[in-house]
Structures are given as C-alpha cells and as structure tokens.
C-alpha cells in the first residue's frame, strides 16, 4: 500500500474540489474559503515533494496574507450579484470548450514528451531544505532577490496611492 501516493491523491482531490467550488460560488466569501482549501492542499503536496520552505511560505503568504487581503476587499465591496456568469450560456459553453481544447493540447504534449528520466530523489541536504534554499537564494540568486524586494516596495507604494480616497 503506497501511502505516499494515497496522501498525494487526497491532496490533489482537495485542491481540485477547492478550485471547482471556488469558481462556481455565488458568494465571494465562500469562494475565498475554497481558495484557502486549495492553497493548503497544494502546500501539503509541496511537503511531499521535499519543498519544506516553500510549504511554509505558501501557507504564510498565500493563506495568511493574500487571502486576508481578498477577504478585506470582499467585505468592503459587499455586493450580491444576481447572476454569477458573464454573458449567458453561449459564453459558458464556448469557454468550456476552449478550455478543454487547451487542456487537450497541453496534455497531449505531456504524453508525447520524452519519458521523464529516473527521478533523482533530492538528497535531503545535510543541513535541511531551509538552509539549502537560503544558501542558494543569497549566493546564486541574490540579484533577483534584491529586485523582488524593490518590486514589493513599489507595489506597496502603488497600492497605497491607488487606494487613497480622492482628495
């Protein structure tokens, strides 16, 4: 009994159900809650893949920061929409068909690609995943790291300026 695979299927099912429920709810707060479910399920899969730092960052930033931001704005903008879907049945059907086509194209390219070489299990670094990621981040990827911090500063300034009440 391959428990690892069972746990992965459980998380995958949770993530998919969360995603489908998220895009079909009438109430935006319900959508946000299902999105949290998806985020946490994906975080669980990260742990299974050995990305423990990413698991922590996902839960903290996505479930703990971005979702809270969404909930704040949903409550500020609290409108009940009488109709969920834009444009009527034709648009719904066309979107569904085009998305299935996209899925088919990508899935067929996966199937035709060269078989994955034997999975090289990430030898857990002697000091652990967090230390390895930190070392890599500050040595190999220090430039994107600094640029991303500047990006965060710019985004913060932009959000404050855009959200200010008109004088």
């Amino acid at each position: 009994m391959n428990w690892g695979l069972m746990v992965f299927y459980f998380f995958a099912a949770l993530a998919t159900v969360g995603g489908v429920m998220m895009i079909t709810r009438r109430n935006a707060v319900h959508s946000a809650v299902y999105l949290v479910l998806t985020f946490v399920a994906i975080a669980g899969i990260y742990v299974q893949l050995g990305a423990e730092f990413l698991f922590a960052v996902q839960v903290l930033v996505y479930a703990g920061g971005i979702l809270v931001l969404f909930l704040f704005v949903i409550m500020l903008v609290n409108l009940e929409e009488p109709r969920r879907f834009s444009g009527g049945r034709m648009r719904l059907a066309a979107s569904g068909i085009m998305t299935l086509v996209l899925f088919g194209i990508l899935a067929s390219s996966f199937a035709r690609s060269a078989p994955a070489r034997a999975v090289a299990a990430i030898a857990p670094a002697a000091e652990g995943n967090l230390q390895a990621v930190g070392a890599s981040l500050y040595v190999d990827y220090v430039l994107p790291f600094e640029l991303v911090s500047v990006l965060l500063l710019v985004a913060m300034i932009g959000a404050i300026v855009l959200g200010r009440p008109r004088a």
Partner: protein
Amino acid sequence: MIPQSHLLVLSLVLLTIGVVGVLVRRNVIIILMSIELILNAANLNFVAFSRQWGDLTGQIWGVFNITIAAAEVAVGLAIVIALFRNRETVNVDEMNLMKW
C-alpha cells in the same frame, strides 16, 4: 514516490480551472482569485521539476513567484477598490468605458 506525470496533470487541471474562472465570472474579485489559482498551478509545476532534476532552482523560482503574486494582488485589489469607488460596481461587464 509520486510519478511526475501525476504532478503535471494536476498542475494542468488547476490551470484549466483557473482559466475557466477568469473567462466566465462577472465578479472582478473572483477573477483575481482565479488568476491566483493559475499562479499556483505554475508553482506546482516548478516544484515538480525541481524534484525531478534534484535541483533547488525550481523551488527558488517558486518563492519568487509567490512574492510577485503577492505584489500583484496588492496592486490589483487597490485598483478594484478605486474602481468600486468610482463606479459602485465590481461587475466586469459594466466596466466598458474603453469599448468602441
């Protein structure tokens, strides 16, 4: 051990769910949430290949992806708030000032 194809198919499924959400919903906030789902699907792809190649690069770019998503959500929601203040609606169909 989780087969690589399973991970790729899951990321593909999440991507298509996000794309459908962006295409058919009227509420701007739910469209933004669907975009977050798409970003998560891409992240899952990064981490899956990081595991396959035994290379930490995928996880590093996953961290950057999450950071950029956070910045994008902040600015996007600020725009939604400014829009709501002006138009009293978050219905995407009614934001058509630039249509001919």
